[in-house]
C-alpha cells in the first residue's frame, strides 16, 4: 500500500476507495457507471426493436401469422419466471444492504434457478421451432394459409435475433451471478460493501425489462 493510500485509509471509511470523498459519492459513481452501460444496452437492443418495428409495419399479416405459432403459455410462463427472478434479485440487494448473509445467498441462488428455468423453457421453444421447420434459412417451411413464407421468415429472423440476444444476456447473467453466490457464501458482502450485488441487480432488471417488451411484441400480436 502506498503512503498516500495509507493516509487516506486512516482518514477515511475503509470501504471508500481513496479517489472518492465519501460513501455517497462512491455509491453514486458506481450506479452511474452501470447506468451508462445500460443506456448503451438500451440502444443496442433498440436497433433490433427498430428493425422489428419497420418490418412489422411493412408486413403486418406475416408477423401476425408467424406470432400465432409461438406458444403464449411458454411466453407467459417465462414472463412470470423472469419477473419473479427480478423480485428475488431485488430482495438479494436488500439482504446485502442489511448484512443478512444467509438470505443474500438464498435470494441469489433463487435468482439463478429462476434464470435457468427461463433458459430451459427457451430450449423447449427453440427445439419446437427446429422441429417445425421455422428456423430462417435452415430448411424453413411455411404451409399455413396466412402470411407469405418469405415475410414470415423475416418475423422468425427477428424472433431468433431478439430472443437469442436476450437469452445470451441471461447466460452471461448466470455466469456472473455464480461467483457472486460463492463470494456471498464467504461473507464478502455486507451493509458496508455490496456494490457488485447492486450493480449486478441493475443488469438483471434491465434484462427483465427487455423481456417485458419482447413478450407482447413477439407472442401477443393479432391474437383477437
Amino acid at each position, binding site marked *: 500500500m502506498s503512503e498516500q493510500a495509507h493516509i487516506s485509509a486512516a482518514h477515511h471509511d475503509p470501504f471508500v476507495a481513496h479517489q472518492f470523498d*465519501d*460513501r*455517497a459519492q462512491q455509491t*453514486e459513481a458506481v*450506479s*452511474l457507471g452501470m*447506468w*451508462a452501460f*445500460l*443506456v448503451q444496452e*438500451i*440502444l443496442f437492443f*433498440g*436497433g433490433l*426493436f*427498430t428493425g422489428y*418495428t*419497420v418490418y412489422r*409495419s*411493412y*408486413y*403486418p*399479416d*406475416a408477423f*401476425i*401469422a408467424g406470432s400465432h405459432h409461438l406458444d*403464449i403459455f411458454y411466453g*407467459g410462463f417465462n414472463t*412470470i419466471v423472469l*419477473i*419473479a427472478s*427480478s*423480485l428475488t*434479485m*431485488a*430482495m438479494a440487494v*436488500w439482504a446485502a*444492504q442489511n448484512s443478512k448473509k444467509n438470505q443474500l445467498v438464498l435470494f441469489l441462488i433463487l435468482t439463478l434457478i429462476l434464470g435457468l428455468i427461463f433458459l430451459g423453457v427457451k430450449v423447449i421453444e427453440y427445439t419446437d421451432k427446429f422441429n417445425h421447420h421455422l428456423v430462417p434459412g435452415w430448411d424453413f417451411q411455411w404451409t399455413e*394459409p*396466412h*402470411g*407469405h413464407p418469405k*415475410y414470415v421468415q423475416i418475423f422468425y429472423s427477428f424472433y431468433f435475433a431478439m430472443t437469442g440476444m436476450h437469452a445470451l444476456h441471461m447466460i452471461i447473467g448466470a455466469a456472473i451471478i455464480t461467483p457472486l453466490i460463492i463470494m456471498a457464501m464467504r461473507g464478502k458482502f455486507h451493509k458496508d460493501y455490496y456494490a457488485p450485488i*447492486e450493480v449486478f*441487480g*441493475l443488469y438483471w*432488471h*434491465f434484462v*427483465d*425489462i427487455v423481456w*417485458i*417488451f419482447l*413478450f*407482447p*411484441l413477439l407472442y*401477443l*400480436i*393479432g*391474437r*383477437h
Partner: protein
Amino acid sequence: MEHVHVAHAHPTPKLYLAVFAALMVFTLLTIAAAFQNFGVLNNVIALAIAGIKTTLVVLFFMHVKYGSRLTKIFAVTGFLWLSILISFTLSDTEARRHLRQEKSVQWPSGWAPLPAEVKEPGAPSAEHGEPHEQAAERH
C-alpha cells in the same frame, strides 16, 4: 449535498412484493387485452402496459426513485435516445412505403411492391384483415 440523504433511503421487502404483485397484474392484463379487439389501440395498450411495467422496475427494483438527479437523467436519456432512433428511422421507412406501393415505379429485382404479401391465391381473406391493418395499408 442533497444526495447524501437519498442514497441511504432503501425500499423495503414489503414494497418489493407490492411492485411484484403489480407487475403480475399488468402481465395478466396485457395477455387479456391481446385477446380483445381494440383495433389500432391493441398495439398502444400493449406498449403502454410494457411502459408502466418498465417504469415500476426502473423506479423501485433499480432504485432510480432513490437515486441522484444525475442517475435519473441517465435513465431517462437512454429511453429518449431510443425514441429518437425509432422515430427518425420510421420517418424514413414510412415515407418510402408510399413509393413502394406505386406500381409505376421500377424496382430493383427482389424489391417487390409491398401489397404482394397477403394477396396469395387461395388464401382465405377475412380473418386477419383487421381494420387497422387495412387502414395502414391504404396510407
